């Protein structure tokens, strides 16, 4: 016979059990009322840490200010949250430039930002205060042997060459010939001096001399030339031409001018101006002394740009270099300081269409060193490959921008220079939206990689993907697509030593993978921010990542929405602030909504604080 226990007894027992163990129940279904929006989440995170927004500020005078410090870096260190609005503004502005297309009569299928607009954008952010440059006075020479229809565009370009050269000379007027030569020899060593060739005295001398450059005039020189190119492009693109071979060649006071016909041409040496009207061409470009400004305009064909030397393919080395390729699947091969690189100058590489490949070693693909380097690729599935210092790299007093308009792109930086921390295993990248300064003598510049469309893959190791070092700004912006970000350390929204790094992905289901000091980590009084606005994303990292402040730094990670998953193997993650120098760092992790999965620390729909200034909030899943 079974003994039947009255239901009431079960209820009483259950009640007693519940009363004795209230604690676990407290954690069920926890949520923070009214803080599902981004502002509310952030305010709550700060309140939970007994802090206000003022506490996120970094003082400007931790070290003595050097003459190369950029206002934007000081502003963002002082108000780190502005990094988010600046990134949003940049992304909107670049998208608008891209969507609206050039201002003057370019075919509708050739949307994209003009060289002038991009240069204006970068110069403005460097805050040089450069005003509008005058339009070059029209040149009206009747060139012997030049086809009539080319006369007007050629004269426009030559008058731009003349004026830009004058402006360039003025920009360097405070330097003697000997000092310029000294700079040419030593400025590159500031970045790539692995063998310590540059002694300390020279090091300081280089910086002193670089400070004598008139930046306004240097940038104006670039703008004059860019405006000239922008103004002739529509006309050149609408031209029908049948002659083959070199149809015109002449020497000018600013260098050689060559016009190539529609056949497959080969160009062996650099010139001040090459206009190629079609065909699959080959360019074996070399830097030519005495031709500080050089322009290549290639209108059609699958071209090969082969730089056995450095300083080519849209590079301004103490000058201005512009390379525009309108159509075709092109291949760009170079060594160093190339492919949209400005080194004490302005370098612009614009590829309007086609599936292109860019390959090189160091300081390329949108790299600015005491100058501006821009690589704009408007369409196509492109491959970018580099060793280090590339793909949106900004060194001291420089802005490096890589803007890719669309396509399924692959960005790879690494594989050549092993990092001393993990020798023979992982590599230096210092790329993909990386700002770099010389600690402790010269503040860094701005590195920006912006990709507007497509399912993209970013691969790098050390220092990459919206990262920076020493009073610099590194930004990676990706607007659309399901993207993959793969890195090792100091990457994906990471700042190292008094600096700001930010990664913002606006749409798509994305995958982020790094090992450590990544995904919104600010190390040593620095700011690291990762913002993902939409999509079901996957994050994985092991150490000091996902909203971590270390050595008095600030890390803010915000995933606004979507069903996300977070994988971590260690504790110092997901809203963690370490103590150092007898005070704390700030680590904030915020997930705005969606049914999320945490493998490791963290929990869906909950808030957690970690000792030493760390907080994480997973907002209430109201709509998922």
């Amino acid at each position: 016979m079974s003994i039947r226990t009255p239901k009431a007894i079960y209820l009483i027992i259950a009640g007693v059990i519940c009363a004795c163990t209230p604690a676990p129940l407290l954690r069920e279904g926890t949520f923070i009322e009214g803080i599902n929006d981004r502002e509310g989440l952030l305010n709550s995170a700060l309140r939970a840490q007994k802090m206000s927004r003022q506490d996120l500020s970094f003082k400007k005078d931790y070290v003595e200010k050097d003459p190369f410090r950029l206002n934007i870096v000081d502003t963002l260190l002082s108000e780190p949250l502005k990094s988010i609005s600046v990134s949003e503004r940049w992304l909107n502005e670049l998208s608008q430039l891209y969507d609206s297309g050039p201002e003057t009569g370019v075919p509708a299928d050739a949307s994209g930002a003009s060289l002038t607009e991009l240069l204006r954008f970068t110069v403005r952010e460097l805050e040089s205060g450069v005003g509008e440059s005058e339009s070059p006075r029209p040149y009206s020479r009747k060139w012997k042997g030049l086809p009539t229809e080319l006369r007007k565009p050629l004269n426009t370009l030559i008058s731009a060459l003349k004026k830009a050269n004058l402006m360039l000379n003025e920009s360097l007027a405070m330097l003697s010939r000997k000092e310029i030569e000294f700079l040419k020899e030593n400025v590159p060593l500031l970045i790539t001096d692995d063998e310590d060739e540059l002694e300390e005295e020279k090091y300081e001398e280089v910086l002193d001399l670089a400070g004598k450059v008139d930046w306004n005039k240097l940038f104006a020189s670039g703008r004059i030339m860019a405006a000239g190119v922008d103004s002739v492009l529509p006309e050149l693109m609408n031209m029908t031409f049948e002659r083959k071979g070199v149809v015109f060649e002449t020497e000018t006071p600013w260098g050689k001018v060559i016009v190539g016909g529609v056949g497959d041409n080969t160009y062996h040496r650099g010139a001040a101006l090459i206009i190629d009207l079609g065909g699959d061409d080959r360019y074996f470009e070399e830097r030519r002394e005495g031709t500080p400004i050089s322009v290549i305009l290639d209108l059609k064909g699958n071209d090969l740009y082969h730089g056995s030397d450095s300083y080519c393919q849209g590079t301004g080395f103490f000058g201005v270099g512009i390379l525009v390729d309108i159509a075709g699947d092109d291949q760009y091969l170079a060594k160093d300081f190339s492919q949209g690189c400005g080194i004490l100058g302005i370098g612009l590489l614009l590829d309007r269409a086609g599936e292109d490949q860019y390959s090189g070693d160091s300081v390329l693909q949108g790299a600015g060193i005491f100058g501006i380097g821009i690589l704009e690729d408007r369409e196509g599935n492109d491959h970018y490959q580099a060793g280090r210092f590339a793909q949106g790299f900004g060194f001291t007093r420089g802005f490096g921008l890589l803007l890719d308009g669309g396509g399924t792109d692959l960005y790879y930086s690494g594989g050549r220079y092993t990092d001393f921390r993990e020798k023979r295993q992982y590599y230096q990248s210092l790329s993909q939206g990386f700002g770099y300064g010389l600690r402790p003598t010269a503040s860094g510049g701005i590195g920006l990689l912006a990709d507007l469309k497509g399912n993209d893959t970013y691969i790098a190791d050390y220092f990459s993907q919206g990262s920076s070092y020493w009073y610099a700004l590194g930004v990676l912006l990706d607007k659309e697509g399901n993207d993959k970000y793969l890195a090792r350390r100091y990457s994906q929204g990471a700042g190292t030593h008094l600096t700001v790094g930010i990664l913002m992905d606006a749409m798509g289901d994305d995958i982020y993978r790094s090992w450590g000091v990544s995904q919104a980590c600010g190390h040593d009084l620095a700011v690291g921010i990762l913002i993902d606005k939409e999509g079901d994303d996957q994050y994985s990292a092991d150490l000091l990542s996902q909203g971590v402040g270390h050595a008095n730094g600030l890390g803010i990670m915000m995933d606004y929405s979507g069903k996300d998953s977070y994988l971590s193997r260690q504790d110092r993650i997901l809203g963690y602030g370490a103590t150092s120098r007898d005070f704390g760092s700030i680590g904030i992790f915020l997930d705005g909504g969606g049914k999320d999965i945490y493998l490791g620390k963290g929990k869906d729909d909950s808030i957690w604080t970690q000792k030493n200034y760390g907080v994480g909030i997973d907002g209430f899943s109201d709509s998922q």
Partner: protein
Amino acid sequence: MGLATHNRMKRLSVLIAIACLLFLNPSSADSEIEDETASGLREKIDALVEKASSVDASGEETKAAKEELVALGKDATPILIAQLDTISVLKSIALLDVLTDIGEEAVPDLLQALESEAPRTRRNAAYILAKIKDERAIPSLLGFLNDEKAELRRIAAMGLGDLEYREAVPQLMKLSDDLDEGVRRHIVIALGKIEDEEATPTLLRALKDKYFSVRFPASEALVKLGSAAVDPLILTLKDKEFLTQSLVIETLGKIGDERAVKPLIGFLSSEDWGLRGVAVEALGNIGGKKARNSIKKLSKREKNGFVREKIFRALEELNSQ
């Protein structure tokens, strides 16, 4: 005698004269040997400094080089100090480490380096003296408290704190309103190390600083003062500013004095979830029946996730006692 012979004789006599001089003046020969030794030592030290400043994944090479330099002791000191004006971060870190480890023997030369005209040398020498914690540095450090460079004021405060130099408290307190956040931070940290009750008002004021980097170390310093700080802290609870109130509550909780229980219980009914949460945590730290009962009572009505998390942790802790 021909001209050639004459010249040969002349050269010979000069050589003989030099040989006699060298023979008759051994000290000159000694000084050459000393010069050679000195230059040999300099070369050796330079090479070691380079190695100590290199990037080395395992750190073993740099560590060995540093140890060798430290072993050279005061012989190496002037040569090392002469390099303190370096702009290389790695080199300056290596020099700071080595000279700090050489310690007392380096102090006289470092004190001399404080007079250097090179700002980097002065700053680095002051920093090392502060780290060595040698009392001979105290007069210099006190002097630096009034230096126009904030960096030197910071180092001075840090050094005096590390030396736990109680006589410096009045001067440190005077500087607690310094315009530089770093100076204020180091003052508060130094006062925390010295643990002088006289500094209580200064530390309480620092709880209202606009930077957490000053407020939080001030809280830590007050925790070290312990029960002596409780009454003034309870009075400060009247401050209506959330940042100050919440930190005072936390500080009282960390001190763990039962006098704070009653005023803290009052905060459990605050409309501000931030204050309720931190009060729960503080009461959990202090413990006792009253604190436990109040938290349990709150647990029945609390809805805010942050506070519930704090309640969970506090009760877990209290139940385990």
